[in-house]
């Protein structure tokens, strides 16, 4: 017996189906603006890093991070920018940096750590750096932070 029937998208026959877009509020900015913002942030982060101001670089990149559909380029750019910060921070400085961040930024940072772990070996991604940040972040923000990454549909 054919098992093809299992692959039928039954939701298309349900007028009242719950759509992905109903599960979260979309980013009000249009994709082009988001991309421009991300580029601007990358240069802001570079100059902050040059001054050694990692704290403000983190705040800059994590504030208003792109999410939702149609902004793949901006998402990739933001991940790249963030990895730049993660890779250039001394591990002894990490706990103090994390404690200075607001709670929303913890959640966003955790999203990027998991995004980075999902794509090992590509570009600047270094597993050991991500894991050490993950450990420090979990110590500061707890398992609740990880739960929020799993539940949040606004993926970065």
């Amino acid at each position, binding site marked *: 017996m054919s098992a093809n029937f299992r692959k039928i998208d039954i939701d298309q026959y349900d007028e009242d189906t*719950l759509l992905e877009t109903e*599960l979260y509020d979309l980013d009000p900015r249009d994709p082009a603006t988001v991309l421009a913002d991300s580029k601007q942030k990358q240069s802001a982060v570079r100059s902050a890093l040059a001054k050694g101001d990692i704290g403000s670089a983190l705040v800059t990149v994590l504030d208003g991070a792109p999410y939702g559909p149609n902004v793949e380029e901006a998402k990739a750019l933001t991940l790249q920018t963030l990895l730049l910060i993660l890779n250039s921070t001394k591990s002894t400085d990490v706990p103090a940096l994390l404690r200075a961040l607001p709670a929303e930024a913890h*959640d966003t940072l955790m999203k990027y750590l998991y995004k980075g772990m999902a794509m090992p070996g590509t570009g600047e991604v270094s597993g050991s750096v991500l894991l050490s940040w993950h450990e420090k972040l979990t110590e500061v*923000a*707890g398992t*609740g*932070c990880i739960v*929020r990454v799993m*539940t949040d*549909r606004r993926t970065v």
Partner: protein
Amino acid sequence: MAAPEVFTIAQVPLTAHAFNADRSKLITSLNTNEAQIYGRQGNEWKPEVTLSEHDKLITSIDWAPNSNRIVTASQDRNAYVWSQTTGADGNSVWKPTLVLLRINRAATYVRWSPKEDKFAVASGARAIAVCSFDADNDWWVSRLLKKPIRSTVLSVDWHPNNVLLAAGTADMKARVFSAYIKDVDSRPSPSVWGEKLPFNTICGEYASPAGGWVHSVAFSPSGDVLAFASHDSTISIVYPGGPAVITVRNSTLPYVSLTWTSEDALVAAGHDCQPVLFSGSAEGWKAIGSLDDAKSGAPLTPVSTGSSSGGRFASAGVGRLGTNEAFARFRNADTLGKSSATPGSPVSGGDSSGDTELMTVHQNTITSVRPYEISANGNVAKVSTSGVDGKLVIWNVSVPAGTGGLSSRLGGMHLR
């Protein structure tokens, strides 16, 4: 502070629990299609009556204190109202009355209204059935709240005015509806939630902060404030006059149940296995501490041999993991390169108790937290919790004294 009263009712999960008015009887369901009434004898709960009418798992139970009626909701899509009558042999029996719910999915949650003339049944059919008694036909009829619910309703709570109803759903929203029924209710006076309130008026809709199912909703005693707990490990407190929503991001696993204890405090409990007291006002909210204190609970729970020497809450930095003996063992093995297994007792086998026991009183998720005792000033003095571990616990609503210890207990918590 007195220690919490701990009762091991069963070795299986307690899906829901409710007490009668004078707290001499308890009804709970042991994860089956039957509800069991217990009577209190000294320090024990003795099984008395089994209520069996449902075909499938009972999901929720409520006991109306004044009219002494029980309502049960089940996955079989039905609800029954049970009233106590005198049977043919002179003994009292609990007589079920079927409720015409008109839902095509499981009933998930049920609560009597404050005046006990209505009750609300939440369901997986994207609807809430608001039920009232039809004396002509001698049955309970329902009206459905449907719009704009997009998914399973997980919890409901009644406003003290007997008209407004809050609901938490799996579409990540908490909502406030009007459940005004013309023949039952008198016109409610205007409140912060609105003035004209025909049936199915939506008085408020609030999304969970990070996309978690809303597990539990509760109105404050005055009804002017709404709190909800969601699966993204947050609790949110809504001041509709504001309109301000205050969010507390917790460092622990999510809470699934919460109840107000006064106008400025509430207790939340859930996957973290311990009830936590929160306090605040329109200016802000924060966690005060766990009701589950290491000292008072010491005789009841295994003594820590691991790394956490402070109170249980001190190690809450990594949530429930920090309170787990097994976790501590592996962490020691990892960071210190040593195994805590003593010679002669192999890691596996051997002492089966202790190793995997949590340092909290509840050994698994708390399914429900409810007010138990009201003090003279109207605040809730004690709350009861039931858990997946089969335990029923009655807690004093006070975080152990010693303000010096407070900050250390909160040390690991992340607050805002």
